[in-house]
């Protein structure tokens, strides 16, 4: 708690620490966006940028973060999202009377099963996590294309309410995110699992000889990650109103980008979920700001790449210090 003093908050050395730097960048971006575009501060835009648009990526980034903290990586998130959004749409199409609860439960079980498969290959069989989860990704793509080659729409309003219903002007999906975030933050910061996760990610050998069940912790990280990807997919199915073989494309890299910008170490054992959520907000505000300022799409791609390079370089330098 010593870092919370006013002196420390305005201390530049504290501000550039991983996990805090992201908030400094976010504040700078908020100020720059507000000054540059009169539309940025409109209620509609703020609601979109903070309360709706980031939710899917934020939950999926939590999944990636948990796995990254354990010292692994998950390259199957995009295909898992595609599979589960397609599955949700397919279930509603093929079984019109199915309840949203049943669909959500099936998605959750599917997510956990995908996490178990990733964990089995990367942790039990010791296949390098990058390759193991890429293999899962390819396998899931095959399953989707076996099921359908076309996108499926028509998710009913009873399921779409999660992304569209509001209470006092606040989309309920924000509360959905907030609950998931608070549970995860408590699990990582106040529960023994969190301590074991960080210790395992930092150095699994030392963690092992200290009595931490390393294999179980890494496996649990993948299972938890799978469940979180399912929760993200439930929201995304609701928001998109359908699914298809490519609906999740890009999510593997976007979740890694957000997590890294937010201070989650690619080497494992470091970083906070809050920082990763800050990384998601940075990506969202960046995209929104570029749209509002009418920046050329090619320049947008270039700038997004630059942000990732700078973030990785910054944290690499911090690590070496």
């Amino acid at each position, binding site marked *: 708690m010593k870092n919370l003093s006013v002196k420390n908050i305005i201390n530049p050395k504290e501000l550039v620490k991983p996990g805090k730097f992201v908030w400094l960048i976010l504040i700078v971006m908020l100020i720059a966006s507000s000054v540059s575009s009169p539309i940025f501060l409109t209620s509609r835009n703020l609601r979109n940028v903070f309360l709706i648009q980031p939710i899917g990526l934020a939950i999926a980034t939590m999944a990636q973060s948990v796995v990254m903290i354990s010292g692994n990586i998950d390259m199957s998130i995009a295909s898992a999202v595609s599979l589960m959004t397609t599955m949700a749409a397919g279930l509603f199409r093929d079984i019109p009377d199915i309840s949203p609860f049943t669909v959500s439960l099936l998605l959750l079980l599917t997510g956990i099963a995908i996490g178990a498969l990733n964990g089995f290959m990367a942790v039990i069989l010791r296949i390098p996590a990058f390759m193991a989860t890429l293999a899962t990704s390819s396998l899931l793509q095959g399953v989707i294309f076996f099921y359908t080659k076309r*996108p499926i729409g028509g998710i009913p309003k009873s399921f779409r309410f999660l992304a569209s219903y509001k209470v006092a002007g606040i989309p309920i999906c924000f509360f959905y995110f907030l609950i998931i975030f608070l549970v995860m933050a408590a699990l990582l910061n106040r529960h023994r699992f969190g301590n074991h996760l960080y210790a395992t990610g930092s150095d699994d050998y030392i963690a092992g000889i200290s009595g931490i069940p390393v294999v179980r912790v890494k496996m649990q990280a993948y299972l938890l990650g799978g469940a979180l990807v399912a929760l993200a997919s439930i929201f995304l199915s609701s928001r998109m*109103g359908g699914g298809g073989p490519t609906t999740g494309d890009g999510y593997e890299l976007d979740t890694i980008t957000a997590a890294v910008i937010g201070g989650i170490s690619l080497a494992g054992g470091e970083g906070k979920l809050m920082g990763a959520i800050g990384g998601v907000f940075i990506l969202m505000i960046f995209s929104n700001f570029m749209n509002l300022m009418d920046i050329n799409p090619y320049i947008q791609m270039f700038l997004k790449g630059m942000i990732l390079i700078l973030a990785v370089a910054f944290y690499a330098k911090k690590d070496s210090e």
Partner: protein
Amino acid sequence: MKKRVLSLIILMVLSVSVAFAAGQQGAEVQPKTEDIVVGFSCAGMGNSWRMFLKANFDATVAEHPEISKVYFTNADEKPEKQAADISDLLTKGVDLLIIQPSIGAAIVPAVEEAYATGIPVIILDGTVPTDNITAYVGQDMKKLGAHYAEALVDMMGETGKIVMMSGIAGQMSVELRLEGAQEVFAKYPGIEILDTQYTGWSIPKGKEIMQSFLQAYPQIDGIWADSGLMSFPALETMKEAGRPLVPSTGDHLNGYAKFLVANNVPGYIEPYSTLQAAWALEEGLKAVKGETIPKTIYKDPETYDFERIKEFVDMGKSDWWWLGDDQIPAEFLPKID
């Protein structure tokens, strides 16, 4: 620190909520004839076809002084980003929204939200499965795929073994072309489909897939492709492998046309025109001005058999040029080498 950040987030949520409650807007939109703001939500910008689509859009905008501002967004083929882009465009107060769907089935709520604001919403180059749009403007994709198939059957004398090469798996514009073709081939028992693969309209991937076709099948008599972006690399690969060149289909990519003429091999070209963006804008403007337009507006560009291709091809232009779609002022033409 966590408590402070959490408090900050809750404060932001409440502020946004209060501001939003005060800022709800109605859906009554009056026709406009001047100072029109147009939004174009593009699916992606990854190839020269997309660049020509934007060029034709920009050139058409320049012909309409009543358009005061245009906003363009690029979804990078991600439906969730496209939903966010559409929200951003609505925030900017566009009077007309043109959407090239990334995955139509996965942007339905965003499209319906846009339509509910009362502005005309025009879809091109793909379908969105909802009635809540003003119009679809473009080509009949299923018919296009069927035309390619009929032309190939004709060139092959109704018999032989073929391979099929499609664009991006799962995209409606791709699947409809494929479906149209398969329905035609089913009518001809002499035509055997050896294999069907998606190439993502990527030239390297097209070559790679054709190489595997050549290894797997000693006899290939025809190539059905939904774009010149596929048939061009496929034929090049056949030539490199020393295999006899065969009839093929595709759209109006100059490289494909050049290859057919240079090697004197029969082919069939039917453009999947980038003028769709211009047509969509023209129809959308009519709707903004209060005219009623049909819900589905199909346009049929000119088709080219091998003799016409010989007249049509431009051997001096880049392989990545889109023939016939370049009838716009030079300042708008993409810089393609």
